[in-house]
């Protein structure tokens, strides 16, 4: 019996940068079970990042309900949200978002600092995570000494380090060439096979191929939600 990891009910996100209101999300409802591997697709501006940020507790919805692991996210205060981001969520960004002047090792251990893990433990776990993503020989390198693919591996290691309930990747291959993109997606495949729940945002169909379930957004609404292989393109 699979349990619901995420339950989203009629979420809206409205921006008012000028006079006109922008409905970045316009009534999204979604259930995600533990162990799912989902690709979110859609044109630029369709609301993919907005949805990811809300799922990742980086942003809050204007209205609607969001349950993560049975927590009612809207009722949480800043500290509790920080704890959720720390323990439950592993975020991978298109632009890597590594600390430029810190080593790969320090970048990976960052989440553990905020969960008060001792420094020896942190080091041990970060080394293990870097080895797992194939960077055992690059631990003391700084981001400017790493290739794009290697940087993204560091970011994936960082996302994994605290053993989160869900890994969120917003266009993780957007800044990578196609060969490196496939390497990174293979890494996500491995993680999925180990039982991790993964959501990847992409607008490239090739990348979405890797996921088991695909959700299409259009103008802030879910246009399609299907399992890969069951629907013919």
């Amino acid at each position: 019996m699979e349990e619901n990891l995420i339950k989203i009910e009629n979420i809206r996100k409205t921006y008012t940068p000028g006079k006109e209101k922008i409905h970045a999300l316009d009534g999204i409802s979604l259930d995600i079970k533990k162990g799912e591997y989902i690709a979110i697709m859609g044109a630029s501006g369709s609301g993919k990042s907005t949805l990811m940020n809300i799922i990742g507790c980086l942003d809050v919805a204007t209205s609607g309900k969001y349950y993560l692991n049975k927590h009612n996210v809207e009722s949480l205060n800043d500290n509790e949200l920080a704890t959720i981001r720390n323990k439950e969520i592993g975020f991978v960004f298109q632009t890597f978002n590594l600390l430029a002047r810190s080593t790969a090792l320090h970048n990976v251990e960052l989440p553990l600092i905020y969960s008060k893990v001792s420094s020896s433990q942190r080091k041990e776990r970060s080394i293990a995570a870097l080895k797992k993503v194939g960077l055992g020989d690059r631990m003391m390198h700084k981001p400017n000494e790493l290739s794009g693919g290697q940087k993204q591996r560091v970011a994936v290691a960082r996302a994994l380090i605290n053993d989160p309930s869900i890994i969120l990747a917003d266009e993780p291959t957007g800044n990578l060439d196609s060969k490196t993109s496939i390497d990174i997606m293979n890494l996500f495949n491995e993680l999925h096979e180990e039982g991790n729940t993964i959501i990847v945002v992409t607008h490239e169909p090739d990348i979405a191929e890797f996921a088991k379930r695909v959700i299409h957004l259009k103008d802030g609404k879910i246009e399609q939600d299907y399992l890969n292989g069951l629907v013919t393109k």
Partner: protein
Amino acid sequence: MFFDLLKIAVSSIFKNKMRSFLTMLGIIIGIMVIILMQAAIEGFRVEMQKEINKLGANSFLVTKYPAMGNSDWREYWKRPNITYDYADIIENSCTNVENAVPLQERWGQEIKSGNKKATIKIHGATENWIKLFAYDIESGRYFNFTELNKRVDNIIIGKSVKNELFEFTDPIGQYVFVNGIRFKVVGLFAEKGKFFGQNKDDIVVISTFHFQRMFGKNQNLPVQVSAYDQESIPKAIDETIVTLRRIRNLKSEDENDFEIMTKDEIATKMNGVIAIIYLAALSIGGMSLLVGSIGVMNIMLVSITERTREIGLRRSVGANRNNIMVQFLIEAVIITLLGGIIGIGTGVGIAKLVSTFSKFSTVAPLWTIMTAFSVSVFIGLVAGIFPAIKAGKLNPIDALRHE
């Protein structure tokens, strides 16, 4: 946790050495200025105390004007002068007084020899003068007892007078002119050096006879009175007061029209003056620190704007508002603390150098250093709190999206 945030703060300071140093500069200068001024004032106080102590353990002064007075000068102006003769009268009529010496000195006088000139301070010699002022004879001799009140045209000169008038010749036996009178140099004092920029070697000593002929017999001067021992000082003071009141024909209801100054009183007055100098020095140092702390605040704000994405990233991996706030607050405090330490170091170093290479002695007491420490930390907290709160308030997604 705190220790980890401390490590983060320290490493970001060291990853940006140039900027951190420039930020510290204001604090470094402010603290250095305070330490230096403090050292100079303390040095001045020590030297002044030495000078006061020269008064002799059992001595006090009789003067017309109060020491470093702050009240109406015109009132004291009307008082009769304390003159040369008072010394003998006091010495002869007070049983507890060992001796009373008139301090005859005039500043800004001119001495000539051939076409060379020098500005000097003239002392009128008394028997104990050389002992009282602690000068040594380098060559020649001091006055004999018989010369003091006679018309003897002898003069003893200080080292810098010799250097200006007789640079390459032996001054002994040479002739000089002071106020139109020709004197023969019979002695040369050994060098004494400078006391707070004031030359102690640009002096000459002439006989009381000549001193009075030049400046008048009834000029005002301080008389230094010495009791036989510590216990007899109060009695000596009482006797001196009685004697002076008698000379001045004061009625029992009249107030004294002269001042008795003991060492303690002079020291107390001096400390009052030093306190005022302190206040001035502290306000100058405080100003530079204020400017410095505004600089720290400014750079912290700039740094937070530049590092908005870093803040966003930290928030996205689980830092809460407090974590961010504490990180930046620690950073500000460490910057000002380091600035303070460098300021203390350079201040104390310069003070040491100054006292090593000049007679201008400076002292940086421990309490100043401790105060400078705490002030640095305090400035860091004050200058850092506003930027730190600002950093903590950034919302994660806006911070991450910051360009």
